[in-house]
């Protein structure tokens, strides 16, 4: 039984076919990659699976239940976490609050607890803070926990976003270009962190990347998407040597 199954998903924006007949199976513990030139439809696929768009055709299953047509917040709480290509953090909220917000549905103390600081609130807050801090430790931003996010360097912001996604306790983590805009030092650090997160939390990861080095190093299986269609699927070696992939990336002349 696959953890996540996407079957024959097709999506149109008006008359434009953005994704055609897309299939995906993510097994527990796998790291899968999705590569492709700009505008190939990679982020659209993320948006389709996480419920921001509803596919025109096709089925999406998370474990045993279909998640097509569910609202984004329902899909998120059923076990898909994601980050964004362009950072979407909450200005003026602290790093810790970002992670705490991800525990929203697990906070059960109400008004009285919040205003009068009942023992239940203290217990829950302590529990959430402990969990949050261990996640922040994992992505190496623990010392910045009480900082407002606008004060953080770019690389750290990316890691905060990842911690926030992890805090929803996803079964599959979606990373949209986790190393976009990073310098080589930040890049290596991010790759180490992705590996560590994968190892320690044992979740499946599905990531979009532009940089070949990252996908080649991290992923078990890679799909190559061109104009909304998967043209190749295989291990990093197979992908690297596939003439169609090279053609899509480097242009036709090189191949002939």
């Amino acid at each position: 039984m696959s953890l996540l199954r996407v079957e024959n998903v097709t999506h149109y924006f008006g008359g434009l076919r953005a994704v055609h007949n897309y299939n995906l199976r993510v097994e527990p513990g796998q790291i899968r990659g999705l590569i492709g030139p700009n505008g190939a439809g990679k982020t659209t696929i993320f948006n389709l699976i996480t419920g921001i768009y509803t596919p025109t055709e096709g089925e999406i299953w998370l474990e045993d239940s279909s998640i097509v047509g569910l609202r984004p917040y329902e899909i998120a709480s059923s076990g898909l976490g994601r980050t964004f290509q362009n950072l979407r953090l909450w200005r003026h909220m602290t790093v810790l609050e970002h992670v705490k917000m991800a525990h929203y549905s697990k906070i059960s103390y109400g008004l009285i607890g919040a205003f009068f600081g009942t023992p239940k609130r203290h217990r829950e807050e302590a529990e959430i803070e402990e969990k949050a801090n261990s996640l922040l430790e994992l992505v190496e931003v623990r010392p910045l926990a009480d900082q407002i996010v606008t004060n953080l360097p770019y690389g750290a912001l990316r890691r905060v976003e990842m911690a926030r996604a992890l805090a929803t306790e996803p079964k599959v983590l979606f990373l949209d270009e986790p190393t976009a805009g990073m310098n080589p030092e930040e890049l290596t650090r991010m790759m180490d962190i992705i590996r560590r997160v994968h190892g320690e939390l044992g979740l499946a990861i599905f990531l979009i990347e532009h940089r070949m080095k990252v996908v080649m190093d991290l992923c078990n299986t890679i799909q190559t998407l061109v104009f909304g269609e998967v043209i190749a699927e295989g291990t990093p070696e197979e992908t690297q040597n596939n003439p169609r992939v090279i053609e899509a990336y480097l242009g036709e002349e090189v191949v002939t």
Partner: protein
Amino acid sequence: MTFFFQNVVNALQWGSFYALIALGYSMVYGVLLLFNFAHGDIFMVGAYIGFFVVSGLLAVASMSSLLLPNWLLLVLGIIFAMFLTSFVGMLVERVGYRPLRAAPRASAAITGLMIGIILETGNLALLGARRVSFPSLIATTTYNIGGVSITNKKITIVLVSLLLMLVLHQFVQRTKWGMAMRATAFDFSVVPLMGVSINTIAALTFGLGSALAAAAGILFSVAYPVLDPYMGITIGWKAFVAAILGGRGSILGAALAGFLMGFIEIFVVVIPNPFPTMFPFSLFPAPYLFPSTLRDLVAFSIILLILTFKPHGLFGEAHTARLRL
């Protein structure tokens, strides 16, 4: 000097009304990026609901010959009216704004104006054109502090308003709903990914804003006990201006700008005429520079001037339009 402090007290009272109403405008804008132009009329609805609640409580108290102190009736009245009015606000959001979440902003603005008219004329249709007078719960006592006369009503109004603002601040900072509201205000596109429904947060924001407007409505009725269906229009627009002045979406800004609005309004008409005999001041031979008929003109000109230099308001910040879900 006593004259100055006398006006400070008046400004604080009016500032309380403006601040409470402006908070509703600003919170809704912060979370949903729209101005609820029916908010002034929700203030009116809140005042009427308060009127019915208090009248009902008085009737029950007299029938059962229960001796409830009047201050308790007022407190109960405020709490019940806030509670009931919050549902009016949530209904307005559900029926009027939610279907238009993806529509152009102008549609939402027009809908708001329309809902306002429905609330006003609905009130006229239900209750007729007669004005109702709010039961006088507190007998006016005037304290004289160093020549400044302060009524117990004014003290009550200012203190209750400040208390409510403090409670709101705590709510936004300490509860999970407040946290979700803040997150939605900064970037709502990620909020659903935390397993939170935007609809819940929108309803909550409207409910809270309307509850504060209801509190303002009752406090207003305590000071000026004649209610009519159009009572919310002028005060609503002024509070809207205060919300803009404070910076759209800023809670602190709305509260402070509400008070600033009160101060500007009260104080523009008590600026002494500097040269009573000199032209052009001699044209209006009066002890004050501006006649009270020019109150709004001068007050709004000052605000316009402030906004010229701080176009995002006192506590607002520039941000580009965000994607909507």
